[in-house]
């Protein structure tokens, strides 16, 4: 069983109607109706810009924003319903979160690489371990759904700073096989989600594991190190500043393990742990 090749994006940006928009546990979820595009694959993302009023008080946002889809469904009257989970960290994400039903949103995509299936990562794999942090739970949610559809068992470990940064969990994840960690101890495990990963890997046979992760850079790097040390195959969905999303600008550079850079928008956002030099490129050096 192999994951299909990445779907090809329609050429050009297209206006999509906002069908729904609502707050969710400190984050924001909105739904776009895409009547032209192909179904995206887990791990892929879109470039989004509110239309026509992109361009705010201070001259930003100006470029579109890279956003992973968090759920896809068929729309009753045709096309796709795409859900996006947004953390408002600046002018672009704020503007997207302020869109209202009936508004229009420019969309390009789907772009980027998809997650492999567990057996593609590790022939021994019995199932998948999904490690999501903060807004990074969105790609984990779509991967989990695909695995459910394909009958592949998975366990989800989700970590959050606090309740104010934990939107979308109830909607996007079934409660069964999901474990939560909160840094402030307000619920679930008190501490990092990587604590849960370490527990699981100790209990499990590490040789049958396949790990997937998306979240803040420091968390991704910790997951990467944990897996590399144990020789567990791991795929990470990274972030990086992006201007275009389709390989045009060379802006989304991530350092490769063997020197040079990959373009995250076309060579990623899903990368193998051993492919990259660090999941924290560009971040201020810690300590």
């Amino acid at each position, binding site marked *: 069983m192999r994951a299909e090749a990445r779907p*090809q*994006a*329609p*050429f*050009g*940006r297209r206006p999509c109607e906002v069908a729904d928009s609502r707050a969710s546990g400190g984050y924001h979820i909105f739904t776009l109706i895409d009547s032209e595009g192909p179904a995206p694959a887990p791990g892929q993302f879109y470039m989004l*810009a509110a239309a026509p009023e992109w*361009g705010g008080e*201070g*001259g*930003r*946002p*100006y*470029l*579109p924003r890279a956003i992973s889809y968090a759920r896809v469904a068929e729309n009753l009257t045709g096309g796709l319903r795409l859900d996006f989970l947004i953390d408002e960290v*600046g002018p*672009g994400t704020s503007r997207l979160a302020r869109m209202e039903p009936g508004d229009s949103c*420019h969309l*390009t995509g789907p*772009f980027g690489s998809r997650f492999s299936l567990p057996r593609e990562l590790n022939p021994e794999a019995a199932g998948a371990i999904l490690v999501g942090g903060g807004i990074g739970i969105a790609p984990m949610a779509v991967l989990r759904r695909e695995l459910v559809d394909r009958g592949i068992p998975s366990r989800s470990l989700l970590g959050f700073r606090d309740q104010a940064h934990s939107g979308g969990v109830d909607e996007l994840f079934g409660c069964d096989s999901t474990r939560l960690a909160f840094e402030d101890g307000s619920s679930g495990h008190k501490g990092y989600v990587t604590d849960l990963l370490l527990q699981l890997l100790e209990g499990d046979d590490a040789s049958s594991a396949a790990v997937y992760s998306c979240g803040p850079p420091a968390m991704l790097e910790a997951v990467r190190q944990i897996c590399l040390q144990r020789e567990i195959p791991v795929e990470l969905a990274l972030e*990086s*500043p*992006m*201007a*275009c999303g*389709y*390989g*045009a*600008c*060379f*802006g*989304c*550079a*991530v*350092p490769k393990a063997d*020197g*040079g*850079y990959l*373009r995250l928008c*076309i060579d990623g956002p899903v990368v193998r742990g051993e492919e990259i030099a660090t999941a924290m*490129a*560009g971040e*201020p050096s810690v300590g």
Partner: protein
Amino acid sequence: MDLSTEICGIELTGPVLNGSGTFDVLAARRVFGDALVEEFPFDCYVSKTITMNPRPGNPPYRLWETPSGMINSIGLPGPGLEGFLERDLAGLAELGVPLIVSVMADCAEDFEVLVRRVAARDEVAGIELNVSCPNVHSGLIVGEQPSETEALMKALRPITGKPLIVKLTPNVANPEEVALGAEAGGADAVSMINTVKAAAIDPGDNRTWLGVGAGGLSGPAVRPIALAQVRVVAAAVEIPVVGMGGISDAESALEFILAGARVVAVGTENFRDPRAGSAVTSGLPAALARRGFGSLAEAQSARLD
């Protein structure tokens, strides 16, 4: 309305090029498939700047959004001359539009090799000389000095009969002096503007955002700067000008032509819309008509007071 035109002998179906380094067609074809070629958005394709040796480019972050613009510090990543000729050139020749290859070096000798090797290929209609990149510290920034620019052109001119276009830097007090140097040295055209030196502070940490500290500003924010420079340069030289800097639609493209550019290039707007070049072209007839022009040629020969 007939939009066909030419620049230094290269026949074009219309006046819309891409800015070098703002549209990697090979990547875009992987992403968008054959639709990219069938509905190719430009009338002429300008390659990303090629260097002698392969270059990894600058460390991240390489991008920051600014008010109505962006800063980049890409640092000319690329396969180097040989890699380009062997691997990339074939794909660029399939686009159905003339191909201009942009080259850059940090000494005249390397420039000579680049021009000789690139001009020898039939697929190549013209060569753009990037003497203006603000990201690569060559010690000598040729494009800042009229005499250096002239000397470089004099060295390169005998190598090929194909058009040589000099890409000017906007980071000088008097760009028309550099343009006159290029013209005196035998350039067939100048293209302008490249990006304007710029920096950004990390919104979260007390450090500069870009990995290399600074970069170049592009997008609508720089359009008024570009229009002023195109205007003075076009008035100073006889050779044609390729105008760019913040072009986002047909109206802003036409502004460059009125300022004195013969043809225009779309850069940063491609990142907002991969079909931006087509949008500019399709809007041009109405924009020309609104200003009372019956053809592109009329606008190209109009002189502003």
